């Protein structure tokens, strides 16, 4: 049986900060920013983090697939919100994966995702590899300009892969071009020329060479070369050194997304897989305290894959953000007067959260086996007034159901980090309804009957205790991916 990539997906937040807005604000201080003030970068809504993005990327990859065969989940990031809480565990519950699934968070290097992918491709277990990144950058830093938030996911397993592994190689080197320690919120980065000349150039080409040799392939065989690097000309120089044609270098998505850090290798891989054809070869490289290289060959199965939204679809689902202020506020880079209503302490009720995890994390409701009524949440007594049977509800998954707005408001009185707070009643197309927060929505465009989809989001952040709770929200339904 061949291990390979069975499915892929991505997630990119809705809002795209116009880089010009950054330069307009900080150009007085750092005129060099004006040279970077082109294009846009994706940034998380206030209710998103690496966990929520990972869930959405995984849902994109798994759309329409049974999840029961997934035996392992690897979640790679350097920007996990917790130091001691299993993020892949949250993702697994949000995806309603089997409770016996093996989960590991892979962290602390920009090549976390490529290492996790190599491990998954070397294992016989069907493995979901997901990577998400939401890097924090100091205001007015070049890093703020070049970064983007996002997530990508690939499902690895046997069967009929749409891309199979031809070769792989890795090297470890404690080459520290940047770092972030426990005590520091932001990265500390060394000079770019040194990173290129003493880092990328000596370390990466030999790893590529070994990878290609293992696959009995040459640089010229590579159709798509995916290697994230924000430094100018590095990718071209590596390609040249490895004998890869310049036209094989894939779009780094700098103009439309920004560099998504540890998630970027998978992001580029997904962006390439979306348009790849059978027989094409993809060289994927991750760089960070060494390097990983994988050579994949696209199989004819690529033609049979039902299309996910992927990178392309998510780039199209976009809201231009010209206000740098909103970016600063969402990223906690400015101290806003949030008003007294923001002081409400809702606590962190761990026991209740655990007891209600099916409702809260998995968004599982009930279906009455006597009358068939779908209802959320699942309760002991059926809500149908003509039934009211006791103890007849089977678990029913609501997360992937489409819904429509039944009633709504845009509330400017209650506290919201992104006022007005939009919420309302949504009715699921198969039945059932819920009063729920809306997200990624233009208040002015709200209307009854609007199609919605559910998304996994941050519900509340408990500032006093450093905890965050997740739940589901309704967002305008994305246009369904076009058939290939």
């Amino acid at each position, binding site marked *: 049986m061949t291990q390979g990539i069975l499915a892929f997906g991505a997630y990119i937040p809705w809002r795209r900060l116009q880089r010009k807005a950054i330069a307009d604000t900080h150009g007085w201080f750092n005129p060099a920013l004006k040279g970077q003030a082109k294009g846009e970068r994706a940034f998380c809504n206030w209710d998103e983090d690496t966990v929520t993005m990972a869930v959405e990327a995984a849902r994109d990859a798994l759309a329409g697939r049974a999840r029961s065969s997934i035996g392992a989940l690897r979640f790679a990031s350097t920007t996990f919100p917790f130091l001691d809480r299993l993020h892949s565990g949250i993702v697994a519950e949000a995806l309603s994966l089997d409770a016996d699934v093996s989960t590991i968070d892979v962290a602390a290097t920009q090549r976390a995702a490529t290492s996790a992918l190599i491990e998954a491709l070397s294992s016989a277990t069907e493995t979901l590899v997901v990577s998400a990144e939401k890097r924090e950058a100091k205001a007015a830093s070049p890093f703020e300009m070049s970064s983007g938030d996002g997530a990508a996911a690939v499902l690895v397993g046997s069967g009929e892969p749409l891309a199979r592994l031809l070769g792989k190689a890795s090297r470890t080197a404690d080459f520290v071009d940047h770092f972030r320690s426990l005590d520091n919120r932001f990265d500390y980065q060394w000079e770019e020329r040194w990173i290129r000349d003493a880092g990328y150039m000596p370390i990466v080409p030999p790893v590529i060479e070994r990878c290609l040799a293992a696959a009995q392939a040459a640089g010229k065989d590579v159709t798509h070369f995916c290697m994230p690097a924000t430094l100018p000309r590095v990718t071209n120089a590596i390609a040249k050194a490895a004998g890869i044609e310049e036209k094989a270098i894939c779009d780094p998505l700098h103009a439309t997304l920004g560099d998504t850090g540890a998630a970027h290798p998978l992001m580029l891989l997904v962006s390439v897989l979306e348009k790849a054809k059978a027989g094409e070869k993809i060289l994927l490289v991750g760089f960070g305290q060494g390097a990983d290289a994988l050579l994949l060959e696209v199989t004819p199965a690529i033609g049979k894959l039902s299309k996910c939204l992927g990178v392309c679809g998510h780039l199209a689902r976009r809201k231009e953000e010209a206000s740098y202020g909103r970016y600063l506020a969402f990223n906690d880079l400015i101290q806003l007067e949030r008003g007294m209503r923001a002081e*409400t302490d809702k606590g962190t009720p761990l026991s209740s959260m655990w007891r209600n995890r099916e409702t809260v994390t998995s968004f599982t409701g009930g279906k009455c086996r006597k009358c068939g009524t779908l209802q959320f949440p699942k309760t002991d007594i059926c809500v149908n007034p003509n039934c009211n049977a006791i103890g007849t509800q089977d678990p029913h998954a609501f997360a992937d159901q489409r819904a429509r707005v039944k009633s709504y408001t845009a509330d400017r009185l209650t506290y919201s980090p992104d006022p007005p707070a939009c919420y309302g009643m949504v009715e699921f197309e198969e039945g059932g*309804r819920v*009063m729920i927060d809306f997200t990624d929505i233009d208040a002015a465009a709200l209307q009854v009957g609007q199609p919605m989809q559910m998304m996994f989001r941050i519900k509340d952040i408990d500032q006093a205790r450093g905890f965050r709770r997740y*739940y589901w929200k309704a967002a305008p339904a994305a246009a369904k991916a076009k058939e290939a």
Partner: protein
Amino acid sequence: MAKGIKDKVVILGMGCSKFGERWDKEADNLMVEAYTEAIADAGIDTKQIDAAWLSTAIEEQHVGKSATPLAVALRLPFIPVTRVENYCASGTEAFRGAVYAVASGAADVALALGVEKLKDTGYGGLPQRGRGPLNDMVNPNASAPGSFAQLAAAYRAKHNVEPKDLKRAMAHISVKSHDNGSKNPKAHLRNKITIDTVLNAPTVAEPLGLYDCCGVSDGAACAIVATPEVAKSLGKKDLISIKALQVAVSNGLEAQHNSWDGSYFATTRVASKRAYQEAGIDKPREQLSLIEVHDCFSVTELVTMEDLHISPEGGAIKDVLDGFYDANGKVPCQIDGGLKCFGHPIGASGLRMIYEMYLQMHGRAGERQRAQEPVFGLTHNLGGFPQRNVAAISIVGKFGA
């Protein structure tokens, strides 16, 4: 159906504090203010009260839990005192407790007092607070206006109404209540406004603007009830009796079952029907003299006109704009200014509505007195949210009518 309580209990006396921003008063001062008026009106002594009910909803902002705050404030002589809370319908619940006690024969004289001291939060509007661990994990961080605003979206969709037409009818409701409140010396808001004031006000929760929302007030209201025999023995004439008391409580249907369309109050429709039956009223539009409804928001009042089976379904906008519910209309609604302008000290509001009926029926409503002598008055006291609420209806009227 049970026989009900029609004419079994009469109102002996009532009192109401001034509503508003009572910066210089504690909740117990407000309770005493309402009580001294009520006990003087009843013409009895504190020792003659057999049992008492206290209603307050957001007690963590002022008196704390239990019925002891009432017993202590009034120095009630170790009688049974009970505290009730049922969202914003708490006031009617206290009244129901006292009335039922008398109707059952367990008490000859009983007292109901509602109080709320809401202005110690530091900000406008109702206090923002936790609603329990699971609710906080799943429910939107909804404000009251945000919850009730959704009625408008659903009502427009159901009846195919243009937003501006609904908004204009809502504005008429608020202008009418300000007109009425201007004549009420105890009202929180006594300024007159125009349609343009409402339409041009800042938005609170789409489509509700500032003037679509009621005041949040400090205040207390009190009722003393007794058997007709006790009242007569005290020399009382022109008795006002309780004709009906009905409560309907959401059971999750509206929130979870797709049979409710979000444009009306399922509870109010049921409770009002039962109340009419209990009171022997079969044509509410013709028989009711006055109504006081829970106009927490203009749109609530509008849809309630239909839910009380006074305006036909989809016909409230026309009735409102025709002036049917104005002070000089066929069935005046909120002749005292309503929650909108008299104010809304939550636990007191249901009792305040009955207080107004009592004054109007005794011809003691001053400048705002209805010329045509009222016979039946209905109060509608609602708590919660459109999708999950408590509807409490009382009908009072001339004894024997």
